[in-house]
């Protein structure tokens, strides 16, 4: 075990104080140290997008950031979106439009798309496809995912 560093990180609104080795990835910190297993790890080298989380509001790969680098920052994971009884509108659209099959990639898609929809309330299909070009769905269910995003965009703009 090498030297550890104390970190204080806010995850989904809650402050956690932990000691971490520098080589601990943020993705592993979230899953193993905090038990937030909604964040999935697929490739662990930045290709698949399953581990996408919000780092100070920005969608990034949690497998390409060390936990020690999250010190003083604010993280949001898929656990922050909705509960089974009260799904986030985007989660509801994924459910309604059958935009998940095995569901492994879904947390990464959601955490990529939540800020995207905030910035693009009425996205075109091309814009949606570009937004998710860094997320791989191994079931290849992209058609339904695009439909779900369009559905969520319509619902969210109506609600405003």
């Amino acid at each position, binding site marked *: 075990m090498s030297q550890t560093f104390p970190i204080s990180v806010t995850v989904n609104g809650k402050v956690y104080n932990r000691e971490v*080795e520098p*080589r601990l*990835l943020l993705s592993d910190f979230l899953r193993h140290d905090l038990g937030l297993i909604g964040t999935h790890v697929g490739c662990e080298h930045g290709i698949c997008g399953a581990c996408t989380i919000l780092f100070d509001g920005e969608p990034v790969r949690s497998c*390409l*950031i060390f936990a*020690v680098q999250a*010190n003083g920052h604010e993280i949001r994971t898929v656990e922050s979106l909705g509960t089974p009884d009260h799904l986030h509108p985007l989660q509801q659209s994924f459910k309604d439009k059958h935009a998940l099959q095995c569901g492994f990639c879904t947390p990464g898609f959601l955490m990529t798309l939540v800020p995207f929809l905030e910035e693009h309330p009425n996205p075109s299909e091309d814009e949606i496809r570009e937004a998710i070009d860094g997320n791989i769905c191994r079931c290849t269910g992209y058609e339904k995912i695009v439909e779900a995003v369009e559905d969520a965009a319509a619902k969210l703009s109506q609600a405003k």
Partner: protein
Amino acid sequence: MKPVNFDYYAPTSVEEALDTLAELGYNGKVLAGGQSLIAAMNFRMARPGALVDLNNIPELSYIKPTPEGGLAIGTMTRVYAVEHSPEVAKRFPLLPEVAKFIAHPQIRRRGTFGGAIAHADPAGQLPSISMVMNMKCLIKGKGKEDRWVDAPDLIIGPFMTVIEPDEMLAEVVINPLPARTGARYEQVSRQNGGYAQAAVASIVTLDEKDNCKDVRMILMGVGELPILSTKASEILVGNKPTTEAIEAVAEEAAASEIDPATDLHGTAEYRRSITRVLIVRSLTEAFARAEKGG
């Protein structure tokens, strides 16, 4: 845990970062956005003894106009910030055009402009673009005088630059382009954000008689390193950029200037063939844009 053990330093000023790098010598490595380095560390292909994390140094993140009319970009400026900067789009529309091809949106949020150049990945877009735009790179080191290196002299091999272990790339300056200059990036890859099978970036300037005054063209993914074409200027400078002249550049450059490899993703012949097509597309559009004023 995926990477091997390393020591971690999180300086909060450039001075402190340079002190730390000087102390660590060959054992130390700068951590910028980490979007290439951490992936390589996860594979244990990269095993730095110590990382000097620049993410806590806000003074390294900026896009500032220079007195000459160009831009100075701090090394830690995220690619996403460059991609979406109105200052950049106004002066150098080539950059946001290229940025769309750099990996994926989530990577561009974290990856840095200077980090990508200093990483000198021959498959990366930004090292090539820094070369074709002849960007000026400011290198700092403890107890050393600041030095400026032109991007084509900075990159000396795949993943190799003239930056010493006790130094870091601090700033990149892009000088303003002359009037009637147009540019265009063209790339073929299997999927959005994937490696380029081949790519071409051209920057051309027209004189008042619509002759080609200057042309810089770089060929990517078709050799060990990005290749700055000499054929393009031999054939075009001083002449009208006719369809025939542009096709002649494409023929000659694709025949003699590149050395594409055969791999899983495509054969050398295929890469040579698409390079020819991309050169024609890139130059044609660049000249059209130059004619419209850039």
